């Protein structure tokens, strides 16, 4: 990890938090769907991030979002769960060393299929934890499940758009 990478990650951290809190938290489509793009930060951490750092960074990220939404612990626990799953997801979907090209996971280096699997699984883990912890009852299971799936789709959509905009192919 070079100091340049660290610098960019810190910038990305703050940018995503403010983007989430000031803009995305005010978006709701049909009263159901709420995108959580801020977890893009965890998706984009470099491959060689130490695993303890992964957990701590995710915790701090979730905690910061919680400060703004006054849901102390909610986003933090969902983020930590997602960060915990990340190394396992990466090793499960990577077939050979060539799929870990480059410093950070990206659409350009790993290809669409790899990146889709990677982000779909992690986004689903995060959204599942987030929405079910928020309600903490199973009586509204189906309604919550619909919210999880629709919001995950929306988040995934935003992640892919950011990938195409920020890291265009064949640069």
């Amino acid at each position: 990890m070079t100091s340049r990478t660290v610098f960019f990650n810190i910038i990305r951290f703050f940018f995503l938090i403010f983007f989430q809190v000031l803009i995305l938290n005010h978006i709701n489509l049909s009263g159901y769907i709420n995108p959580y793009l801020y977890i893009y930060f965890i998706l984009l951490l470099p491959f060689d991030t130490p695993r303890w750092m992964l957990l701590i960074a995710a915790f701090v990220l979730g905690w910061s979002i919680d400060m703004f939404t006054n849901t102390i612990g909610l986003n933090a626990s969902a983020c930590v769960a997602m960060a915990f799953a990340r190394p396992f997801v990466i090793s499960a979907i990577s077939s050979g060393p060539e799929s870990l090209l480059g410093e950070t996971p990206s659409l350009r280096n790993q290809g669409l299929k790899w990146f889709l699997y990677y982000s779909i699984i992690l986004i689903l883990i995060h959204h599942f934890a987030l929405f079910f912890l928020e309600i903490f009852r199973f009586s509204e299971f189906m309604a919550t499940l619909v919210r999880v799936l629709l919001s995950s789709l929306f988040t995934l959509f935003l992640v892919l758009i950011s990938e195409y905009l920020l890291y265009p192919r064949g640069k």
Partner: protein
Amino acid sequence: MRNLFLFFREHYFYFLFLLLETFSLVLLFNYNEFQGSSLYSVSNAVSGSVNNMFSGISEYFSLRKTNRVLIEEMAKLHSRIPEAFYTTDVNIFYKKDSIVHLEYKYISAKVISNSTNKRNNFLMINKGSLHGIENHMGVIIGNKIVGQVVSVSPHFSWIMSMLNKDSRISGKFKKNNQLVNVEWNGGSYRRGQVKEIPKHIIMVKGDTIITSGNSDIFPEGLMIGTISGFKNAQDENFNNGEILFSTDFNSLGYIEVVVDMMRKEKEELKDSFKSQ
């Protein structure tokens, strides 16, 4: 001992995960106990100032609507000033007017953050304990309910919206004073659920539900909404209905906090009964 140490070092990832996850879950589920603690007010102060800045900008977009609401409110108040009444000399028979005693006082405040898309929704307003706001006070807009204050810092208050799984408002039918409970179980922010309607009550669509005044939070007679649908349950003792909220929770600009001037007296009365 050394082996134990090695074991921890080898599996530190799992332990760190468990530690962080437990820590945040404990915080999440003890959330209510943390209200008023230093942790909570720090987060309130930070997010409050950022939200304040942002709502300062977005306020300009709703000026037209705010004006309209203010004008309506002004017309209503104009009709209440003494000059608007036809006065006779009936009052002359009362030497000391102990009948009219101010029971409710209203503090107006601006909403600086609000949501309707979560399962549990909250609002933040730009007034707090310095302005006389305390926990458990009701929050209204016009003559419609909004929610209840759940936490206060010196400059901001945190309000549990009606749109929350913990929110339960005691209401009644305007036409026959039958008590019901109003809740919200997610989904559209326009519609809530009316629970515990006695079976013998005959409902029609459009029946008005108002606050009962039983809960010490809201004065009696505020609009909650109108019945928009109902189901006659066969095997239970109560019917359930659907309510269309009068409040548009998605466009709250300025709200009012209800201060019950006689709350202390009411609580003392209850406590004195308990201690007997």
